[in-house]
């Protein structure tokens, strides 16, 4: 098996990454469309209503994937931060710029869909519960990262500061995960764990898994497309700068 640094350096080459993205893009997009269509139609119209929550349980099929993606995208940001600070991986900073807004959207949607579920079920849009508050902190970490990475005239300084913020903010991920166990929260405990059997009916679990896979594939496709576009834009800027330099050299001569 190849050592990890070899793989890291292999995909540090933007050309290699663009080839990989071009090959994966159609599969990711097609998979996302198929899984999301099946999952959303199943969740909205065919999955059973809950005996306690009634039809409102259907919000779970979009809320849970958004919660999963908000955490996963932040984990991606933290990994990019590590790659940037330790190995100076040239694509890591570019990836962090592109992952940030996507993760922030997922976190915002997780909070909004949670509120839309909370109003009819708990009778309130918001409570300062440990799970809700830790996800709100995650959303603010995303906003901070987006602002910080663009805050300096010298991009390398902003990227370094944002990488440190991404790594430090990763402490919020285990807090989100275990908040329902560590504190007495209004938010219900996890229904799906790696160690135990799921506590929900399989007729609800299947559409949930399908929408989660669909949204994950979709977000992967969006991040690949945004990163490919950023590489093309950076190459265009380099070419234009070189052309201006050549022109000024010629006029000086």
């Amino acid at each position, binding site marked *: 098996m190849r050592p990890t640094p070899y793989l890291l350096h292999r995909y540090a080459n933007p050309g290699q990454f663009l080839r990989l993205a071009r090959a994966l893009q159609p599969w990711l997009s097609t998979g996302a469309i198929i899984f999301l269509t099946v999952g959303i139609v199943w969740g*909205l119209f065919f999955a059973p209503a809950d005996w306690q929550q009634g*039809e409102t349980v259907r919000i779970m099929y979009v809320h849970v994937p958004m919660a999963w993606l908000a955490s996963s995208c932040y984990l991606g940001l933290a990994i990019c931060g590590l790659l940037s600070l330790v190995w100076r991986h040239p694509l890591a900073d570019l990836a962090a710029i592109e992952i940030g807004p996507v993760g922030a*959207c997922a976190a915002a*949607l997780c909070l909004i869909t949670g509120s*839309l579920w909370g109003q*009819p079920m708990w009778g309130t849009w918001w409570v300062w519960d440990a799970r809700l508050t830790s996800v709100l902190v995650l959303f603010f970490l995303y906003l901070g990262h987006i602002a910080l990475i663009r805050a300096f005239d010298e991009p390398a300084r902003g990227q370094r500061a944002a990488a440190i913020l991404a790594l430090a903010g990763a402490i919020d991920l285990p807090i989100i995960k275990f908040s329902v166990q560590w504190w007495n929260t209004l938010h219900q405990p996890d229904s799906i764990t790696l160690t135990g059997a799921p506590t929900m009916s399989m007729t609800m679990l299947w559409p949930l898994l399908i929408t989660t896979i669909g949204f994950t594939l979709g977000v992967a*496709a969006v991040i690949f497309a945004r990163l*490919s576009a*950023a590489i093309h834009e950076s190459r*265009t800027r380099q070419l234009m700068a070189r052309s201006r330099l050549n022109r000024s050299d010629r006029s000086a001569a």
Partner: protein
Amino acid sequence: MMHLPNHWPYIAAAYGLTIGCSLVLGIGAALRLRRAKTRLAAVESQLRHRESSAS
């Protein structure tokens, strides 16, 4: 059976927002990629043309 009030407006809002934002992100990324590719191709061909006319 227990009668539950109509919660479909909340469900519709949750699905509408999620699907709408996903579409905006997806279509936005695809359009940006297409624009970036077109712009790079135009700049490259402009530079090639300028280099060949200079030589």
